[in-house]
C-alpha cells in the first residue's frame, strides 16, 4: 500500500489528525485506474513581474498533465502567464504546533523596524 499525501498534509512528521483516512478501504472503484494518480500543487504567476502564488491542487499522472489540467482549471479567464506544478509530497512544511517557539524570537526585536528609532522631525527623506 503506497502512502497517500493530501494537500496540506505534507508528509514528514506523519503526526496531526490527518490520518483519518488511512484505515479506510477504497470502496467500489478500488480497481479503477486513476485512484492513485499523485496530487500536485499548482502555483500561478498572474502577470510578469509578480511571484507565483499557490492556487490549489489537482491529480495528474505526470507533470505535463498537471500543467495542462492546471491551465484548464485555474486560467480560464487569463489569470496567469506561467504555471508551476510540484508533487505535493515534495513540499515540506513547518509544524503549526511549533509556531510559538518558531516565530516567538522575532517578537522582542523591535529594533528591526524603522519605527523603533525616534528621530527629530526636521530630518527629511528618511
Amino acid at each position, binding site marked *: 500500500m503506497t502512502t497517500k499525501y493530501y494537500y496540506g498534509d505534507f508528509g514528514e512528521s506523519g503526526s496531526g489528525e490527518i490520518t483519518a483516512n488511512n484505515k479506510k478501504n477504497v470502496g467500489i*472503484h478500488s480497481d479503477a485506474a486513476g485512484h492513485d494518480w499523485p496530487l500536485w500543487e499548482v502555483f500561478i504567476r498572474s502577470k510578469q513581474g509578480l511571484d507565483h502564488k499557490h492556487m490549489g491542487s*489537482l491529480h495528474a499522472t505526470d507533470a505535463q498533465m498537471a500543467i495542462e489540467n492546471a491551465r484548464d482549471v485555474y486560467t480560464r479567464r487569463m489569470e496567469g502567464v506561467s504555471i508551476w506544478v510540484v508533487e505535493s509530497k515534495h513540499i515540506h512544511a513547518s509544524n503549526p504546533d511549533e509556531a510559538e517557539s518558531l516565530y516567538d524570537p522575532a517578537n522582542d526585536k523591535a529594533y528591526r523596524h524603522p519605527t523603533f528609532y525616534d528621530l527629530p522631525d526636521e530630518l527629511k527623506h528618511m
Partner: protein
Amino acid sequence: MPIHDLEKTFLDKIEREIKIEPRDWMPDAYRKNLVRQISQHAHSEIVGMLPEGNWITRAPSLKRKAILIAKAQDEAGHGLYLYSATETLGTSREETINDLHSGKAKYSSIFNYPTLCWADIGAIGWLVDGAAIINQVMLCRTSYGPYARAMVRICREESFHQRQGFEILLVLSRGSDEQKAMCQDALNRWWWPSLMMFGPRDSDSTHSDQSMKWKIKRMSNDELRQKFIDMIAEQVKVLGMTLPDPDLKWNAERKHYDFGEIDWAEFWNVVKGNGPCNKQRIEARTKAWDEGAWVREAAVAYAEKRKEKQPQTPKGALEAA
C-alpha cells in the same frame, strides 16, 4: 498538549476570526462536519452539470451553446476546487466520489428536477445559481481556510452564470406569446425547488447550530432564504413575470417579503431519493465514470511511456517558468 487545551486554542481561533488551516488541530466533529458539507457541495457542482448538459446540443444558437459549455466547464472546475478542499481534511478523492456513486453522499436536491424546455436553463441560471451564490458569498467567510479560498474563487466565476440565466429569460420575456409562456412556466416550476435549496427551516435543521458555532456557516437557512426571496421578488419585475406564490407580499413592518409555505413533504421526499430524476442522475454519473475508465488507463500508460523516454530530471523546468 492535552485535548482540552487543543480544543481551547481551536475555539479561541474561531472566536478571533483566525482561519483554521489543514495542519491545525481541529475537533473530529468539526472535520467530519466539513467533509460532509464540502463534499456535498462538490457533488452538487458535478451533478449540476447534468440537467444543463441535456441542453448543450439543443441550445437555440451557437452563442448559447458556447456560453452553456463555458458554464458547465466552470462547474467542473468548482467541483474540483471543492474536492481538493475535502482532500485537505484527509478524505481521498476516490472515497468522496465513491460516496456519491453509492448514494451514500447527498447533493443539492435541486438537480433532481428535470429541465423540460430551454427556458429552464434560464431559470436555473437566475434562480438556482442565484440561490447558490447567496450561500456561497456567506461561505467566503467560513472558518476553514481552504474552503473559504475555494469559495472566493467560485464566487468570482459564478456571477456570469446568474447573469446569463437572467438574460435568457429576458429575451424570452420580450419574445412571442409562446416564448413568454415558456418563460413563465419555467419560473413556476423552478421557484419552489429553488427556495428548498436553502435547506430545512432553522427549527428543523440538524447541522445548523453547531455549524454556526464553529462559523462554518455564518447565516442560518431561513436568513439566507429570506435574502434570496427579497432579491428575486424585485428582479422578477424586470421580466414582467410573476412568481407562483399568492402569499408573496412586501411587509413594510418587517422590511422583507412575506411568502407562502414551502411544501416540506416534497422537500423531504426528494432529499430521501424519490425526486423525479434522482436515479437518472446517479446512473449518468456512474456511467460516465465507468465509460471513462479507458481514458484513465490510457493516461497512465502514456505517462509511463513518456517517463521512460525522458531524462530523470526535466532540464530547465524553472527557467522555462
